[in-house]
């Protein structure tokens, strides 16, 4: 195909699929494919475990307002989009949500009811009692009868016959687990091998007719399936008597029956691995149609009409009024009193009550946070003394604690920036192997970077590689023996005497065992000094652009310290399938050290410094950029590539190391107050030892709390938050409006880091409000399947979202499920212009997925952006 392309354009010419000979059939296939795409929008995209990425499970519904999206999720997925009324009311009992919060939430939703009462809020006379409409709604919120939980409104054809539905699910799990296996299985399913182009449907079609557990006529029909998945799916739809009008709805019902498998197939299809939702649906609906056919179905075939919706009926306002009158003991109520109550209650549908509670829940936190930020001293405009060192951490909420503790130790400055440090790299470590994408999933890697021995350290690197190879070989041999048919017996005889005590030591003496193993690993594979091929992976233009963009975005264009540490993060845990969920989201669910090392290599480059000076960013000659990595499980910060630091900076480096250790210990003590099973420590050193031991404990289901509690995203200078304990609940992105006159940096912050933070926020939110549908349940019954996900038990759906141990303990939620609040200090017209040209921001802010509070200067009051422009934060829309 001839074409013109731009810098960002791509052209594809591939082997042609045989053209359809029947135009009507071809059009039907195309229509089917689109219906599958549209039906699949309700699914999340589920990454494999090794690169667990926090996503909004309702991302496909983000083009709708939040309220509507959770309603649709209730109908389609049978999932709850908010805490239940009982859970929310329990927060009222504890005082976490107050009547004041509820009144304010009602006032924001219904400005005409806001106190002092307007016409609609005028008092109602109920017997001897006089109440306002707002009082009535408040009473309904607190005492009204709750609705039953949602359930899927449209069921699949197979669900009319439970035995068939179970058989279809079982077949789906069996074949998907076999085909999608990522190297865990001893035997790969034929046709699923890496590089195979057959795809799920073709691989399944070749094997399914041999399944002796199926009736003969089903096997015969499977043997006669068409070669194309879309044709098989169309045939199945015909057999199930699904008409064109109903097609998309039925496809969606089929996808949401086991949304975990479907979500992972969706991810695989977007990553070009030979499987898509058409394959998946062809498999499921073929089984359903054949098993429901006369003679094979355990019960009569289902009707051809859709099943009646099972969405619970909303109680009428009149019913609620009667119930409320009884609850409030208003005595014998006259019809006119009930009518007045009914009119008041009609304003708020019963299904919206949890949303008002949610707004009250959020308002309590948000108002408190904004008040604390408003109380911060306005920074002076004069110069400030040079900091002992500067630490640039990831925006991750866990960094807030580290920054606060380090600033308490000494005259350090800290900043926040997305943890990939603006270098989207494909990284290969010293051991080689497959490169790893270290960047947000919003991006594709742009540069290749490899680790290599430092000059003169080739021998040490070879010793390390040899040791790593020996350890990997031993591990592989052990696992091969375990998986072999006869090997386990010999293995038990040969090493059982050793493995038993080791397992006991790992369990009972996790800390000493972890330290001993660490020493052994260092002895077998001693660390070697290395460097990265950072400069080779970037053109001179890329290096210059990176440095300018990164420093401008974080507002670090002057006042450089002698040491500036770019500090990535990762989490060291044992036996934790969800380990990558604790690593850096901005680095694609991996540790951020390589990104920090790459970025500092570029920032220390002489040519880059010259370019920076040319654009007005004078980095002093004595400033050295250094990489670090914060282990969020142990709160230790490792300073990397110390061998590259010039001798002139060694004394500062040693002092910084000591201070980071002190700050890390203090942070560990802070965290021990919240970690299940940890005793509030009498000393920071003891706390540091505890979290260290915890991170090596293979039985520990709570190695750390991750990003639980996240609730706000603050964009602005550190002076907004310095000295405040934000409880590790806020993403902190540094920004200085005065160095970004065209708003380019702010636009990047709002369209990338904020978007990723919102995904994380939604992942935690939905995993908390419906842990069974949006979360993966308890870790204690998880079975890893195929290396791609977990099952709860040995069968069923691939579980989505975060495990319960990421959001709660016992039967108590630890994470507060609230939507993200973005707090921005920048000119309001700049923010408004950025939102106006970016639909992604219009959806997030306009759809109430994220709230936005902003002010231009530190001494200005907070404003909210609504449909009618900016107005004071505390006033409802349209009342300014």
């Amino acid at each position, binding site marked *: *195909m*001839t074409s013109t392309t731009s810098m960002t354009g791509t*052209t594809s*010419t591939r082997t042609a699929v045989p053209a359809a000979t029947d135009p009507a059939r071809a059009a039907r296939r195309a229509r089917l494919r689109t219906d599958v795409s*549209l039906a699949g929008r309700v699914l999340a995209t589920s990454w494999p475990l090794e690169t667990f990425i926090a996503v909004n499970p309702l991302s496909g519904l983000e083009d709708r307002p939040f309220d509507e999206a959770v309603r649709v999720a209730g109908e389609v997925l049978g999932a709850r989009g908010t805490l239940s009324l009982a859970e929310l009311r329990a927060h009222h009992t504890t005082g976490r949500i107050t009547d004041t919060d509820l009144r304010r939430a009602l006032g924001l939703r219904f400005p005409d009811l806001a106190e002092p009462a307007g016409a609609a809020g005028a008092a109602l006379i109920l017997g001897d009692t006089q109440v306002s409409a707002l009082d009535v709604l408040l009473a309904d919120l607190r005492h009204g009868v709750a609705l039953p939980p949602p359930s899927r409104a449209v069921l699949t054809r197979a669900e009319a016959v439970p035995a068939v539905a179970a058989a279809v699910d079982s077949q789906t799990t069996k074949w998907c687990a076999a085909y999608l296996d990522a190297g865990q299985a001893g035997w790969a399913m034929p046709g699923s091998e890496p590089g195979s182009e057959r795809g799920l449907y073709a691989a399944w079609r070749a094997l399914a007719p041999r399944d002796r557990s199926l009736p003969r006529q089903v096997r015969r029909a499977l043997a006669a399936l068409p070669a194309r998945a879309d044709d098989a799916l169309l045939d199945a739809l015909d057999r199930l008597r699904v008409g064109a009008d109903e097609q998309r709805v039925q496809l969606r019902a089929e996808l949401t029956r086991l949304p975990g498998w479907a979500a992972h197939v969706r991810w695989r299809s977007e990553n070009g691995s030979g499987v898509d939702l058409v394959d998946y649906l062809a498999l499921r609906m073929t089984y359903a149609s054949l098993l429901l056919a006369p003679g094979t179905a355990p019960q009569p075939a289902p009707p051809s009409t859709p099943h009646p919706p099972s969405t619970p009926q909303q109680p009428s306002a009149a019913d609620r009024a009667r119930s409320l009158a009884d609850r409030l003991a208003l005595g014998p109520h006259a019809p006119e009193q009930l009518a007045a109550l009914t009119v008041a209650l009609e304003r708020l549908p019963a299904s919206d009550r949890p949303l008002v509670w949610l707004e009250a829940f959020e308002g309590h936190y948000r108002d408190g946070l904004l008040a604390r930020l408003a109380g911060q001293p306005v920074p002076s405009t004069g110069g400030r003394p040079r900091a002992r060192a500067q630490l640039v951490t990831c925006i991750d909420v866990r960094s807030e604690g580290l920054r606060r503790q380090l600033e308490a130790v000494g005259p350090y400055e800290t900043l926040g920036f997305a943890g990939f440090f603006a270098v989207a790299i494909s990284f290969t470590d010293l051991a080689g192997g497959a490169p790893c994408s270290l960047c947000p999933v*919003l991006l594709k890697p742009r540069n290749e970077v490899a680790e290599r021995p430092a000059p003169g350290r080739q021998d040490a690197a070879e010793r390390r590689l040899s040791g790593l190879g020996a350890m990997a070989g031993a591990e592989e041999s052990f696992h091969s023996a375990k998986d072999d048919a006869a090997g386990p017996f010999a293995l038990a005889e040969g090493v059982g005497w050793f493995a038993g005590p080791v397992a006991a030591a790992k369990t009972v003496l996790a800390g000493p065992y972890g330290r001993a193993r660490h020493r052994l690993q260092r002895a077998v594979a001693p660390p070697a000094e290395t460097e990265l091929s950072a400069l080779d992976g970037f053109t001179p233009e890329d290096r210059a652009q990176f440095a300018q963009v990164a420093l401008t975005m974080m507002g670090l264009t002057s006042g450089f310290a002698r040491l500036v540490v770019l500090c990535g993060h990762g989490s060291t845990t044992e036996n934790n399938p969800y380990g990558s969920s604790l690593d850096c989201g901005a680095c694609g669910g991996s540790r951020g050290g390589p990104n920090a090392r790459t970025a500092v290599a570029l920032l220390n480059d002489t040519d880059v410094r010259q370019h920076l000076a040319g654009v007005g960013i004078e980095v002093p000659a004595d400033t050295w950029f250094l990489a670090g990595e914060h282990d969020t499980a142990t709160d230790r910060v490792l300073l990397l590539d110390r061998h590259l630091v010039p001798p002139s900076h060694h004394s500062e480096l040693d002092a910084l190391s000591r201070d980071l250790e002190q700050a890390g210990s203090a942070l560990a003590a802070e965290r021990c107050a919240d970690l299940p099973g940890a005793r509030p420590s009498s000393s920071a050193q003891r706390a540091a030892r505890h979290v260290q031991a915890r991170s090596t404990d293979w039985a520990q289901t709570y190695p750390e709390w991750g990003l639980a509690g996240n609730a706000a995203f603050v964009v602005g200078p550190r002076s907004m938050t310095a000295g405040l304990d934000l409880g590790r609940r806020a993403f902190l992105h540094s920004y200085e409006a005065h160095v970004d006159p065209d708003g380019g940096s702010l636009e990047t912050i709002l369209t990338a*880091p904020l*978007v990723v933070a919102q995904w994380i926020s939604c992942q935690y939110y939905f995993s908390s409000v419906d842990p069974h549908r949006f979360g993966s349940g308890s870790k204690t019954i998880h079975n890893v399947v195929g290396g791609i996900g977990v099952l709860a038990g040995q069968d069923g759906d691939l579980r989505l979202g975060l495990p319960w141990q990421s959001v709660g303990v016992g039967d108590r939620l630890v994470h507060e499920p609230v939507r993200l609040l973005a707090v921005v200090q920048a000119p309001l017209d700049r923010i408004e212009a950025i939102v106006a040209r970016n639909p*992604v921001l219009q959806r997030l802010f306009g759809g109430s997925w994220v709230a936005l509070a902003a002010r231009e200067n530190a001494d200005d009051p907070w404003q909210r952006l609504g449909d009618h422009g900016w107005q004071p934060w505390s006033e409802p829309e349209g009342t300014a």
Partner: protein
Amino acid sequence: MTRTGLTRMTKIEVVVSGQDAAAVRELVSAVGATGWTGLSGVSGLGHNGRRQGRLLFNTQATLEMLITVVSDDKVDALLAGLRPLLDESSGVMFVSETYVSRPEYFT
């Protein structure tokens, strides 16, 4: 309109969000088109207001333009798939006559 020595075909241009582009590409391939050209980071002004072009750290939130050229026998099938997709998404589609010098590349 005629073009001596050239072969008439149909050009279909679709502008959709980066998130929907994969569905369009899949559809184009599924109907038997032999290729497509993609332009990411497309900016403009339309029914839904102004759209920003390329974003520095987000390639999913911007618009993408996909262009394909197909023979007449594939047009209806492709449109049958594209129209419902655009009914449910923001985006535009342009269908026009075009002429190519090497028709075997497109069939």
